[in-house]
């Protein structure tokens, strides 16, 4: 990365403001655009409780949960990506690529197929939590494995991490395959749409639960900006500089698992946001996590809302799954990064 274009805090704060405005504009567009177009000011009227019953129903029942889930998903995946890249000192540590999303997906799929047996034993108000909790457990197991891998080697190379991700994803994929095989017709339909990633399929209950969990995890990650800066020195030097490395990894690992688990449960596996958003933020605003983390979150929200608008407007009224759109953009980006990152150096 070029030295001359390093951003100072003076341009970082306005840049965050611009990103915030872009997010607001995209959210408004997400509420206004679709098969039925509603003027932006009518959207605001409907949000405030006014407007025609049709407008109100479209905004409140169809588009608002979708936009909110998009915002939670974009922010959670981008922050998780930035945090994992920071802890592992590895620019390619995307939750999808290293298998965290795969673990969460296996947890969620197992719940969709087998959850019926457990859900009956749970009190009614707890049942909607089963899916996000199972996804969290899957994500947490993979993160624990990846962190252990990083500890054993002292420093994980890009190649080790990606190969471990390939293996984890293969195992999760096999597990999902087993679940698909034993699922009935209705479950199979649910699974098929879910595994491609979509923001449209969730009702308010799941959106609120996933959103609340993701929003609860974000401050934990945002508060660790300085810790993530110190992680860039390596774990030994970070410890020497006064960081409780194990506690920081535990807090960030749990928060990342909560965030990824929650949004994966609600939206399905959505790839590459955790890779692309932090990289764009880093290119524009530098490596300090105090700025990188909020910038990544906003960038993730903007990317996901834009991708969702894209799939909704591409071939209306059909809606290709958003996971296809993020992979279509993210895949080539990943290839470009892979060719650019020198394998003998830990970081781009």
């Amino acid at each position, binding site marked *: 990365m*070029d030295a001359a274009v390093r951003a100072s805090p003076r341009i970082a704060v306005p840049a965050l403001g611009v990103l915030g405005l872009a997010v607001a504009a995209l959210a408004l567009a997400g509420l206004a655009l679709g098969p039925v177009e509603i003027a932006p000011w009518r959207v605001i009227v409907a949000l405030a409780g006014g407007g025609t019953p049709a407008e109100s129903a479209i905004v409140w029942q169809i588009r608002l949960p979708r936009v909110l889930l998009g915002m939670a998903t974009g922010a959670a995946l981008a922050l998780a990506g930035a945090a994992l890249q920071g802890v592992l000192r590895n620019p390619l540590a995307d939750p999808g690529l290293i298998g965290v999303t795969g673990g969460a997906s296996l947890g969620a799929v197992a719940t969709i197929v087998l959850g019926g047996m457990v859900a009956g034993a749970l009190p009614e108000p707890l049942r909607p939590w089963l899916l996000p909790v199972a996804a969290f457990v899957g994500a947490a197991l993979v993160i624990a494995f990846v962190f252990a891998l990083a500890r054993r080697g002292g420093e994980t190379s890009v190649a080790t991490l990606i190969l471990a991700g390939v293996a984890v994803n293969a195992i999760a994929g096999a597990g999902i395959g087993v679940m698909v095989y034993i699922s009935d017709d209705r479950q199979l339909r649910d699974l098929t749409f879910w595994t491609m990633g979509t923001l449209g399929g969730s009702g308010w209950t799941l959106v609120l639960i996933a959103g609340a969990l993701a929003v609860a995890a974000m401050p934990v990650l945002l508060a660790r900006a300085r810790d993530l800066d110190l992680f*860039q020195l390596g774990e*030994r030097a970070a410890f*020497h500089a006064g960081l409780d*490395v194990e506690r920081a990894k535990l807090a960030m690992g749990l928060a990342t698992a909560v965030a990824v688990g929650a949004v994966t449960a609600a939206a399905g596996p959505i790839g590459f946001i955790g890779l692309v958003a932090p990289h764009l933020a880093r290119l524009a605003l*530098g490596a300090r996590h105090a700025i990188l983390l909020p910038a990544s979150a906003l960038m993730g929200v903007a990317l996901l809302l834009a991708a969702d608008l894209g799939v909704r407007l591409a071939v209306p009224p059909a809606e290709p799954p958003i996971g296809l759109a993020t992979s279509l953009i993210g895949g080539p980006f990943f290839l470009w990064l892979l060719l650019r990152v020198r394998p003998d150096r*830990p970081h781009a």
Partner: protein
Amino acid sequence: MLEAADVTVSLGGRRALDGATLRLAPGRVTALVGPNGAGKSTLLACLSGALGPDAGRISLDGDDPVRLTPAELGCRRAVLDQSPAAAAPFTLAELVELGIPRAIPPAEARRMVREATAALGLETMAGRSIHALSGGERHRGHMARVLAQLWAGRQLGGGRWLLLDEPTASLDLAHQASVMRAARRAAAEGVGVLAVLHDLSLAGAMADTVALMQQGRIVATGPPRYVLTNDRLAPVYGIEVAIAEPCEGVRAVVPVYRSTPGEDPCSSP
């Protein structure tokens, strides 16, 4: 006082430290020398609190360092690792600031960053990305970060010990001198300094005390003129050395490559 008393550590089935005893004093620079694998870095890791001994005792101003929190340790002592590296493309000023805990007010932190970069002769490079610096500049940047940590620690009631693991390994002569001068200046302000050094002449020129290690224990400790002699060094390193004192207080150690035993290398043609 920072001291190791009869410390034993096994790493991977091998006894890395075998009853090592070393006492650092405030205001003095101690050079820790010895052949590769003698246990120098392991001893430094024990003194820094990164590694707990299997037997023996480490005392950091009366406390067992592994019982202190990392934050307390970071306040009491600063450590420069053997090959420091930062993965992210921080600017040099950002790198140095990493040494300073949040308890220090921002204005004070900025002043420390300025002074620490200046102390290592890097003041013109504060805004440059560390990935665009030379290896030597980057290494000095890490030394500046450690100095800043030491100064910040002092403001918080600590900052008494500075541990340097091969601080000059990748540096040319002038930059070796700038790093060692910074260490000496810290000692002049009352800090106890330990530097693991491979260059015995550097130890002879810069240290108040030289501690010689062999196979996990300290075999000699004392002023350079006492430790840096052929009689002590030859059995430890397995090679004869010639000693010169080009000027007062400077002791140069040169390995003797050409001579056969008993022959005076300086008289050979």
